[in-house]
């Protein structure tokens, strides 16, 4: 495997990691607020904050990791995306900043505040929407380069069925992933009322998730024929994705083995996300950046991969420790520690 391919695979794994952990976080923020306005907050908010408090910072790192790695492996990405994304990128930063800091203000600070809660919940849905714009742009047709100046075609973006279907998919996926995780976590905590509530959320959000996946697929066929054809060739990956979705739904519906159900949801998104990503190659930004022509120099690419492997030796045990302490420690989850 060439170092460019290893590079993009590593980055894609991290983006996938972010997709899962951030979805849990963003969705949880929304559910926490929703439960509050429907007066069910006493049922699940304790559960949500017990999970989120030790891990929110880790979630943020996944994201930083991805974009730093992207710029490192493919410096031209900084030029094109950086030039085009000033406005939407800045808005996403502001939303992330408000969300991250307000979380800390609310949870570690003194009094619970309704405004913090609302902003926390609302940004939880706006951030995935704004971040998904970067994925939309990568399909090409929204960024132009004239006389050495890169700019974003706002009107094209706002009127494209594809960009809207991606936004819709991002939001419903967040709610679906988050609710299936919370179902698992509530079962783990043996918290029956919370389990009943989040289980219903999971069943409810599964429907729009599948619909949005299909519409995005169709919209993509209209927008980028090449990418669509590549994805058709990788049909088995999407087949596996749907298969795992069905396993997850069956388990949740039956009300048993929620851990396995959540793993199935992770695999569902894993195959869909990697099928999408593989179909996208060799372009990172159609037609400006490909992984082969715009990668960093070999010496740096190899240094980054070595750093990455070294880093993993440090991170994986630490992450396992964190999970052992807060995710799989039954007493902690139940609120006894």
């Amino acid at each position, binding site marked *: 495997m060439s170092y460019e391919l290893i590079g993009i695979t590593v980055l894609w794994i991290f983006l996938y990691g972010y997709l899962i952990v951030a979805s849990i976080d963003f969705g949880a923020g929304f559910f926490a607020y929703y439960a509050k306005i429907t007066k069910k907050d006493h049922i699940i908010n304790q559960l949500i904050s017990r999970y989120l*408090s*030790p*891990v929110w*910072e*880790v979630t*943020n*790192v996944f*994201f*930083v*990791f991805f*974009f*730093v*790695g992207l*710029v*490192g492996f493919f*410096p031209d990405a*900084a*030029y*094109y*995306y*950086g*030039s085009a994304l*000033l*406005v939407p990128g*800045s808005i996403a*930063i*502001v939303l*992330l*900043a*408000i969300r*991250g*800091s*307000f*979380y*800390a*203000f609310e949870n*570690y*600070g*003194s*009094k619970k505040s309704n405004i913090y809660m609302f902003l926390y919940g609302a940004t939880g849905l706006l951030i995935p929407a704004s971040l998904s714009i970067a994925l939309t742009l990568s399909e090409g047709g929204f960024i132009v380069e004239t006389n050495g*100046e*890169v*700019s974003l075609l706002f009107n094209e973006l706002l009127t494209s069925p594809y960009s809207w279907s991606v936004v819709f998919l991002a939001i419903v996926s967040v709610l679906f992933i988050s609710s299936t995780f919370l179902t698992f976590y509530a079962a783990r905590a043996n918290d029956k009322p919370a389990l009943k509530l989040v289980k219903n959320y999971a069943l409810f959000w599964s429907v729009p998730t599948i619909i949005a996946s299909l519409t995005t697929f169709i919209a993509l066929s209209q927008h980028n024929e090449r990418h669509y054809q590549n994805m058709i060739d990788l049909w088995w990956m999407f087949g596996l994705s749907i298969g795992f979705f069905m396993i997850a739904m069956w388990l949740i519906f039956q009300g048993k083995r929620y851990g396995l159900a959540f793993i199935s949801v992770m695999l569902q998104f894993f195959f869909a996300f990697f099928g999408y990503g593989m179909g996208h190659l060799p372009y990172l930004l159609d037609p400006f950046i490909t992984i082969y022509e715009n990668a*960093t*120099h070999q*010496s*740096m690419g190899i*240094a*980054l991969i070595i*750093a*990455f492997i070294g*880093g993993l030796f*440090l*991170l994986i045990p*630490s992450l396992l*420790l*964190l999970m052992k*302490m*807060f995710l799989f420690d039954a007493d*902690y989850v139940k609120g006894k520690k």
Partner: protein
Amino acid sequence: MEFDSVLMSRMLTAMTLGFHIIFATIGVGVPVMISIAEFIGIKKKDPHYRMLARRWTRGFVITVAVGVVTGTAIGLQLSLLWPNFMQVAGNVISLPLFLETFAFFFEAIFLGAYLYTWDRFKNPITHWLLSIPIVIGSSFSAVFITTVNAFMNTPTGFTMENGKVTSIDPIQAMLNPATPTKVFHVLSSSYLTSAAVLAAITAFIILRKKSSAYYKKALKLTVTATFLFAVLTAIAGDASAKFLAEHQPEKLAVAEWHFETEKSADLILFGYLNDENDVINGIHLPGVLSFLANGDFNSEVTGLDQFPEDEVAPYWVHYMFDLMVMLGMFALAVSLIYLIFTKVKKWNEHAKWLLILLIANGPLAMLALEFGWIYAEVGRQPWILRGYMKVEHAATTSPHVDIMFFLFLALYILLGVLCVVVLRKMFRNNPVEQELEERYPGIEGDDQ
């Protein structure tokens, strides 16, 4: 139009960094203090120190949150505001940037673990051990990110052909000539500033309320740390000046208004320049600049006459340099006086005037840090990548930077105000006397 984008990009970057480094500094230095306090508490079996660690940590989390989000902001802004720079430099500096996120990752994982396991382990040392990775993670992220900044000052480890970067040596780029002194100076001054801020808070409480054993111990610990870190910072500053004299003479010369290359050069404190670039009302210390630059009062120091006029930074950085040095000396002096007073029985180390000086030292140390960074950054003008790329060629061409500037200004005002409000509330609603009584009943009485 183009010029506006450059200016606004510079202002936005300066604002984000200026705001971020307050929290980044606390993020690097405070974990060290927390770890020391908890360790002393466990070793001496003194609950006061462990309470100190606990309360510092609680406040620390709030500042970390702001540090994380503003750090994310500057991370993205590098590409959003300086796409041309990142396209070139990204090739060479991505390794330390990448490593920095690893260090950050490491810290983030263990911070969560540390926060939620205070009473979870039978042996308290187990909990203290969790603070070590936090210290390592936060200090190493400072180290890695500082190497990136050092690279911008003394770029090495690559060759440039027709505007394209070729043959890269990532390790050499990271360990460039500016790295050792910069890393040393950044770490020592971060520790110094954090200790000084914690000392200032403690001194403030002692001055306002009746003092207690808890606060006295806190003050002694923080001021002692301030003194030790101030000594280290002074050594680091001296090493930095010698580095500048050798590798970036124009930066040292502009800080000292040293216009002509000469032997036995004067160090100039303050003053101002007239239209002919003569220094008016400055305090001249004969030969001291030569000593600072080369360790020899008679050595030759390169002046600004050796550089083209359009490659010299604005002269006002002189004041930044002077203020940084003065405030560093102030921190050293105040903490030394306090320590002498604790040793001499008949002198009261909690005298009102000394407490006031210690209170002032907190914000002043933070200001010194800001001045130091402004000097380091503006002193490199007009280069973004010294000798390779000028700032005006690096900025984005987007016309919307001005609106973004105000968007971020509003964000930082909001975050700054809320951070202070939340911290005040947090400590006011939960006074230490009450918390000590709850956790260790009867402690205040038998400790006196």
